């Protein structure tokens, strides 16, 4: 009876720590581990404590499933939220992760700035753009109050909208692709360690 309680409390802890998985995935894991514990105890005649100890702590076992799954699912996703969560997780694991995380932040923020510029231009045409004076670059900005004084003049005009949208989309696409590639790469390296 006590062995049943020991097994159940291990499985409950496992289930608890497997939180982020779907119910189906979670129950599949628990069912497999339960079968392992029963088989292992029967086969070797070992005490359930020994079998559970050989399996490792429930929270550590669950963490191995969770990390793998988080990164794996994100590497197939295009959701910035999922991708950032996974890179943040990766960043806690080493220098490569920190580098990926920083690049992700930089990539997303540049993309968003470009897109924002495209949306700001129609509403604040005099305060958004690229300013030149005597053929040389002077300033650039979005919602630039006050705008650079004449003779500096804004050179892009409404062309800024398609240009910024294209650059913004390309930056966001490239960032998404780069994060997904890095996550896949990290799977090959990290999840084994």
């Amino acid at each position: 009876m006590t062995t049943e309680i020991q097994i159940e409390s291990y499985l409950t802890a496992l289930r608890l720590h497997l939180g982020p998985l779907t119910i189906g995935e979670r129950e599949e894991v628990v069912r497999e581990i339960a079968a392992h514990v029963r088989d292992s105890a029967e086969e070797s005649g070992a005490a359930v404590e020994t079998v559970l100890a050989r399996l490792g702590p429930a929270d550590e076992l669950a963490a191995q499933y969770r990390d793998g799954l988080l990164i794996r699912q994100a590497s197939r996703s295009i959701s910035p939220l999922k991708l950032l969560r996974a890179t943040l997780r990766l960043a806690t694991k080493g220098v490569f992760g920190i580098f990926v995380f920083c690049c992700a932040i930089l990539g997303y923020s540049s993309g968003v700035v470009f897109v924002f510029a495209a949306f700001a231009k129609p509403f604040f045409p005099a305060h958004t753009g690229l300013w030149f004076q005597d053929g040389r670059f002077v300033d650039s900005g979005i919602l630039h109050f006050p705008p650079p004084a004449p003779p500096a003049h804004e050179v892009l005009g409404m062309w800024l909208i398609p240009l910024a949208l294209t650059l913004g989309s390309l930056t966001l696409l490239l960032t998404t692709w780069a994060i997904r590639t890095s996550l896949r790469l990290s799977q090959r390296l990290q999840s084994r360690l």
Partner: protein
Amino acid sequence: MANKRTQPVGGDEPDRWEAQLRKGALEMAALASLWQGRLYGLEIIRFLENHSQLVLAEGTIYPILSRLKDEGMLTSEWVEAEAGHPRKYYSLTDAGRLRLRLMAEAWTSFSGGVSRLLEPVLEKKENPQ
């Protein structure tokens, strides 16, 4: 967990280095154990114990199997057993066979090179003078 990673793999930590080496080979070993046919988790663990010194905590193998399945390298099915409860059997897919073959080739050429590199070191150990 975090402080484990920040520590360098140095001469004073051969155990940790060896542990990482084993873990690095575990995925290939898990695939290799299924080369002859389907096995369930505990059988894979016992197979690896009998043929190598790769398994550390027994739990480690299950998340690896789950990942390999997710990547399409393995398939699994629950099979009723005499034990009274079903067991989850894993088999290699064609993609899994291909990956294992490529891993085995890479491993053999890599380990051959490293062994040649280390020959003088081991000879020295046997004849220190």
